[in-house]
């Protein structure tokens, strides 16, 4: 659990982050969104003390982050940045081994962990372990960046625009991977993005920042239905808020008992996707069918539309 208490950062007369307080639950993903200059990156960087706060404090699992030297603190916090920042003179395996080496792990343990992570991130050790970063594609570099951040099994992972440099298709894949990995390793993720869709897709909780202040911090659905501020409403998108709301619910969650002869959709599809499918096919209802072929229920257009209202 990360507790941010009244955190501020001032450079001279300019206040970049202004009295932000928030609590990030364990094993969750919090997305911080805001326009550029909103202070979202600075807030993130104050958690691992790459930026020292002017006032306020940060507690991780109850411990003040100022209790140990900043560089020692950072060895227990994963950190991923836009553009990855992989060490260009070190191989993929050496890059991933960075923090375990700093922590003085045994060679055998490091080797095993690197092998495990290469497998998790779908990088064949035979072809990639000894490759240099510039020999990898953008998507692979990004994965190595995340693998490196997770190498020492941190409980907290900070990500600063991690997918900003990826093209849309690879970005969607990287976002799915992050959700999988978060479920698998169960760490607490704090992610900064300027992309509201990304925040809604990944965030258990979303924090909206503007001008250094935290405007609202809540579940995505609440941000849509009860925006605390006109700015939050603008950020979340007034024109397509109903569609956004639909994209937060999966077919499996919304399925009603019974069946019909409409098109089959997987339970993991969002209502937005189901609605689009029904529009495309000119059908009134869909069957929710899981991977084993069992019918889990049905969805009518009316039921879907009802979910798009606040």
């Amino acid at each position, binding site marked *: 659990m990360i507790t941010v208490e009244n955190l501020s950062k001032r450079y001279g007369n300019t206040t970049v982050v202004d009295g932000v307080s928030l609590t990030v639950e364990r094993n969750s993903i919090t997305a911080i969104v805001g326009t550029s200059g909103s202070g979202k990156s600075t807030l993130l960087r104050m958690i691992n003390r790459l930026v020292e706060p002017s006032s306020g404090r940060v507690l991780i699992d109850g411990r003040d982050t100022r209790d140990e030297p900043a560089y020692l603190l950072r060895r227990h916090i994963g950190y991923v940045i836009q553009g990855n*920042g992989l060490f260009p003179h070190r191989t993929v395996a050496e890059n991933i081994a960075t923090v375990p080496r700093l922590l003085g792990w045994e060679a055998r343990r490091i080797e095993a962990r690197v092998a495990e992570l290469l497998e998790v991130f779908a990088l064949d050790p035979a072809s990639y372990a000894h490759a240099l970063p510039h020999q990898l594609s953008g998507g692979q570099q990004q994965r190595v*960046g995340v693998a490196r951040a997770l190498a020492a099994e941190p409980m907290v992972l900070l990500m600063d625009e991690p997918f900003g440099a990826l093209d849309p298709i690879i970005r969607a894949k990287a976002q799915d991977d992050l959700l999988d990995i978060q479920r698998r390793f169960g760490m607490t993720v704090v992610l900064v993005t300027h992309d509201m869709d990304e925040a809604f897709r990944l965030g258990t909780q979303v924090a909206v920042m503007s001008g250094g202040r935290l405007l609202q911090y809540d579940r995505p659905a609440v941000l849509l239905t009860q925006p605390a501020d006109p700015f939050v409403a603008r950020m979340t998108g007034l024109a397509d808020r109903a569609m956004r709301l639909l994209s937060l619910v999966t077919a499996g969650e919304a399925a009603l008992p019974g069946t019909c002869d409409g098109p089959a959709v997987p339970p993991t599809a969002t209502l937005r996707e189901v609605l689009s499918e029904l529009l495309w096919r000119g059908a009134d209802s869909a069957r929710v069918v899981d991977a084993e072929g069992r019918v889990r229920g049905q969805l009518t257009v009316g039921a879907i539309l009802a979910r798009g209202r606040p």
Partner: protein
Amino acid sequence: MPRAVTVLRLAALALLVGFLVTPQSFAPLFAPLTQYGAPPIYDQGNLLTLALAQLATVCLAAVASSIVAVALGILVTRPSGAQFLPLSRTLVNIGQTFPPVAVLAVAVPLVGFGEKPTLIALFAYGLLPIFENTLVGLRTCPPAVLEAASGMGMSARQRLLSVELPLAMPLILEGIRLSLVINVGTATIGSTVAAKGLGEVIIAGLLSSNTAFILQGGLLTGLMAILLYDGLATLERRLLRPVTLD
């Protein structure tokens, strides 16, 4: 193409070694340049000994300037040392703009004749390329890489040693190479203050109007400089991993 280069290299090396070991076999080549029966090949000292002495002086000076210039470069790129940048730059620039001959003139009354004044002149003259290249190398490390290094939990020292210096190394080595080559040529003036070197041959030629002496002193020095530069560049390519900064 690479084969032609290799052949050229080996030919230059063979020429240099051959000339240093058996200078008399080149006598017929230089004889037409002499007048009144003057010796065509320098005969007041062993050419090999002179060449080695010059190389030793140059290398010693290069080690000293490398240590000082790299240390200065590191110092002024740290936040705590940034204020020394203008001062360091001025000092290093003076070392380069002050003619080595003038340095010799100033140094001789202080440290006497021989190798010492030459070492001082070469040391001062060789600082600039190493310092400037170290500076560029350290400053052009990609900011994302540095941020990642700090974010991973490297201390300032670990970051310098395991990220910044390795990334700056190709440029630093290039600076050292440049400084060495410049000084192989510059070292010949050391012979005016009795430092051992091939400059002795050139000066002897100038004093006795013996073009053959002047030419062989210059030729040997030039060959040494070219081969040294080339050899170091090859060594670098072998030792350093190819690094692409994007």
